[in-house]
């Protein structure tokens, strides 16, 4: 087991380094150095005193100590053995006493940068680590062993304070539970230490001088005054920034491919084809930096060439007439060609090949340059634009070197975000927590569909900066940001609320509707299974087919679910499927939001936490049902623009009257509901009403039974509750006299229409009576109106 040696040479050096790092001590050493030199000159040459030689000794020793401290003492290099004493960072060795223990260490590590990093980014505060330290033995040995193991896992140079903190937590027998309370895992902490080391390295390298060719770099290249006016020089703009890091191996390959393509003869162009957000611009920036780097291995024919991005809107704005614009573009291209060091970049290249507002068609001017290979050109565009350009101008498409830019995966996005937040934090003066990054990754992948990763996660992070509280961007801030900027309504209930609701789902639903015990229980059980994690996470929360006659509560149960589960009836997306009876209606179902905001995909994109009610599903065209199969099966649907829309946070309910008569018949025959369900399902398949693969996609098929008069009486009572709630602000109360509820149930009863006529009956009677009383001034604040049978007869 590892043991810390307080008197090891590394520990001694670290302690000496700490003393010498004091600004007062350093100032004194520099002072001694200069006084020594001055004293030497003065005493030897002016005073003719040999003591001056001793002054040189003072100077030499002080400068030697200064050099030693900077190179060897501040960051004591690791030793040759693999022992903890060879691997501990100088900061940690300074924080450890003669007989270190976790509690003492937890107190001291929070004075270091890595401790503060963990506290701010992860919420792993000093109090938290100290409370963990109370629960473990005082021996640091197992902690050091664990820290060494973690160091090897992330290939870190030293065992830093952050790693020791992670190791202290990992040593606690209940560390998983403790971290779960902070929504973290142990791997997150290890990743955090890696992140800290990476950021530290980046900040250090940002101060390093870059060699970029020097003052005579551009002597052999021409001036480009016109081009400069209508473009942005990417190479120059990256000059003083932190070096662009290419995180993805595929992107690195593209940069190499670009260098190879431009350094050979033949086609001097690259078309970077990829969706917005995939990092096309980052690739161009990395390529531009590579060419400007004197130390990079780049062929001399490409070295110090500058990547210049042409600004389409500036060109259009400055040219008055059509011919003028063409003349200007030709001039710009010629200038770029004659300068001999320009690589022209046409970002969003579709803007240069269209005849519409805000665009300019330069294909006729560009083609000779592309044909002859006289000018190096980079075009960036999405797949759709590439296909459009290919369709319009196949000869142009044939001459382009097309390179596909793939979106980043979850892990790559995370490491890109970890780099990029440096810029965002400086720009918005905020600090991002680690969980904010994870949440941005998760939520953007699920709810942002118009751009790709990592762009959408970065956009979300940037917009979240405006909603930071106290300068801190947390996971909650990210949720707020996506709700406010994207209109996505996320669930608002807490986990405790949700658990309570699920356990009492049946009674909560029955507060709104009566009877249908079988259907309510079936749905409630399915919802509980889903919440307990038993369900398939790649499907909607629940998918149900409600079968039964009209007016028996199918829609009411759907509304109740929206109310109970998603905190409001507003979270119900209702589609009458009798409006989707032709094959062409599939298009309406999946139209993009900007074309039709009432399409199913558009509504779910903005309200993912909803009950989706597909009313009268049996009337939908088979093509529509086929489209819905994917939704039920995989929890996703692709809209007209091929954006993936997630239904994984929705409850999907299809209702149908099909087989309503059969339900009555089976019940009259005395069959129980399970038998009814089985026989009815077979019946519907045999009659061709539904295909078996469609019915099999639902989690549950719920049978709704016809309502009898006693149930209608209970519905009257429920409706009265609702009327009284409406009148509550006026302090008026309505009661039903003896036999009134039964009379209303009798009047509103229709075996074919269920409870539906009852609502109209109550409007005509009870509501009319109340309205009259209020208008006649008979019902003032505090009044109790009792509706009697006589009153009913009068209406």
């Amino acid at each position, binding site marked *: 087991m590892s043991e810390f040696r307080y008197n090891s*040479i590394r520990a*001694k*050096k670290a302690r*000496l380094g700490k003393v010498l790092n004091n600004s007062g001590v350093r100032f004194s050493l520099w002072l001694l150095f200069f006084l020594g030199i001055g004293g030497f000159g003065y005493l*030897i*040459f002016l005073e*003719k*005193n*040999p*003591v*001056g*030689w*001793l002054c*040189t*000794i003072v100077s*030499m*020793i002080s400068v*030697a100590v200064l*050099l*030693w401290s900077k*190179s*060897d003492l501040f960051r004591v*290099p690791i030793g040759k053995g693999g022992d903890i004493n060879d691997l501990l960072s100088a900061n940690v060795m300074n924080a450890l006493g003669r007989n270190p223990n976790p509690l003492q260490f937890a107190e001291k590590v929070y004075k270091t940068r890595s401790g503060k990093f963990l506290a701010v980014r992860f919420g792993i505060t000093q109090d938290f680590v100290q409370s963990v330290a109370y629960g473990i033995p005082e021996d640091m040995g197992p902690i050091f062993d664990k820290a060494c193991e973690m160091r090897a896992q992330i290939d870190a140079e030293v065992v830093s304070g952050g790693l020791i903190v992670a190791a202290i937590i990992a040593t606690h027998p209940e560390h998983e539970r403790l971290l779960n309370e902070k929504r973290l895992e142990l791997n997150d902490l290890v990743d955090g230490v890696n992140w800290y080391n990476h950021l530290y390295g980046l900040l250090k390298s940002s101060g390093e*001088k870059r*060699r*970029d*060719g*020097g*003052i*005579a*770099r*551009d*002597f*052999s*290249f*021409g*001036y480009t005054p016109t081009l400069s006016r209508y473009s942005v020089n990417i190479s120059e703009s990256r000059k003083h920034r932190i070096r662009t890091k290419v995180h993805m191996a595929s992107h690195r390959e593209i940069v190499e491919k670009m260098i190879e393509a431009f350094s050979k003869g033949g086609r001097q162009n690259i078309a970077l084809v990829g969706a917005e957000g995939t990092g096309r611009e980052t690739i161009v920036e990395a390529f531009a930096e590579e060419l400007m780097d*004197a130390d990079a291995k780049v062929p001399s024919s490409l070295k*110090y060439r500058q990547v210049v991005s042409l600004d389409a809107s500036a060109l259009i704005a400055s040219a008055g007439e059509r011919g003028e614009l063409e003349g200007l573009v030709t001039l710009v291209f010629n200038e770029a060609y*004659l*300068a*001999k060091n320009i690589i022209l970049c046409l970002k969003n290249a579709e803007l240069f090949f269209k005849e519409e507002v805000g665009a300019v068609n330069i294909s006729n001017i560009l083609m000779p340059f592309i044909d002859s290979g006289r000018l190096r050109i980079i075009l960036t565009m999405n797949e759709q634009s590439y296909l459009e350009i290919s369709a319009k101008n196949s000869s142009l498409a044939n001459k382009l070197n097309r390179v596909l830019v793939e979106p980043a995966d979850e892990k790559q996005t995370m490491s890109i975000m970890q780099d990029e937040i440096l810029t965002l934090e400086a720009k918005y003066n905020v600090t991002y927590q680690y969980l904010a990054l994870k949440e941005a990754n998760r939520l953007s992948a699920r709810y942002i569909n118009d751009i790709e990763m990592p762009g959408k996660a970065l956009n979300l992070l940037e917009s979240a900066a405006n909603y930071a509280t106290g300068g801190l961007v947390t996971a909650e801030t990210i949720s707020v940001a996506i709700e406010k900027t994207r209109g996505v309504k996320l669930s608002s209930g807490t986990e405790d609320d949700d658990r309570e609701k699920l356990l009492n789902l049946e009674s909560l639903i029955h507060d709104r509707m009566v009877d249908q015990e079988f259907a309510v229980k079936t749905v409630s059980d399915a919802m509980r299974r889903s919440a307990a994690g038993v369900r398939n996470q790649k499907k909607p929360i629940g998918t149900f087919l409600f079968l039964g006659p009209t007016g028996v509560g199918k829609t009411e149960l759907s509304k109740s679910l929206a109310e109970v589960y998603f905190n409001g009836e507003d979270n119900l997306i209702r589609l009458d499927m009798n409006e989707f009876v032709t094959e062409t209606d599939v298009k309406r179902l999946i139209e993009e939001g900007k074309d039709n905001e009432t399409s199913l995909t558009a509504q779910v994109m903005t309200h993912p936490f909803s009950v989706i009610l597909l009313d009268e599903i049996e009337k939908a065209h088979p093509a529509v049902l086929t489209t819905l199969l994917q939704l039920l099966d995989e929890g996703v649907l692709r809209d007209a623009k091929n954006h993936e829309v997630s239904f994984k946070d929705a409850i999907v309910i299809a209702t149908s009257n099909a087989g309503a008569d059969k339900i009555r018949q089976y019940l009259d025959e005395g069959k129980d509901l399970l038998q009814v369900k089985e026989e009815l399902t077979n019946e519907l398949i045999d009659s061709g009403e539904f295909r078996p693969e469609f019915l099999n996609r639902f989690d549950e098929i719920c049978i709704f039974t016809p309502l009898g008069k006693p149930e209608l009486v209970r519905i009257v009572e429920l409706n009265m509750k609702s009327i009284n709630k409406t009148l509550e602000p006026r302090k008026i109360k309505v009661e039903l006299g003896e036999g009134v509820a039964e009379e209303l149930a009798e009047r509103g009863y229709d075996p074919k229409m269920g409870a539906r006529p009852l609502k109209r009956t109550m409007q005509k009677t009870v509501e009319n009576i109340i309205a009259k009383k209020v208008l006649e001034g008979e019902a003032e604040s505090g009044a109790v109106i009792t509706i009697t049978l006589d009153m009913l007869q009068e209406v």
Partner: protein
Amino acid sequence: MLMLVVSFIQWWYGRGFREYLERFVDRLKDAIDFFSIRLLIRNLFAPFRQIAAEERGNLPLNLRFRAWVDLLVSRLVGATVRFALLIAGTIALLFRAITGIILAIAWPLMPLLIVGAVILYMRGVVF
């Protein structure tokens, strides 16, 4: 204390000296890059800033001649500017190289310099 002194000596003649030499080479490279020495040598007679009419095969003879003269002037201007900068760069580079070499020689001799200073003090040498 003795351990630290030994450690200092190990560093002085080991990593410390190696790092000094690396820094010295880096600073020479910086100077070469700053004055674009390699580019100046490689392109000494290249046209300056491409300020010259482009030569094309199908131009009349008089225009081709003018273009050739243009190019010649541009090359001469380029060579003059580059040569002047090359001289300035070489001087700066030499200065940096000489001081660096002197310090590189002095580095391993420092303990001897201290001993030398003590001897000079004891002998009472003054100027």
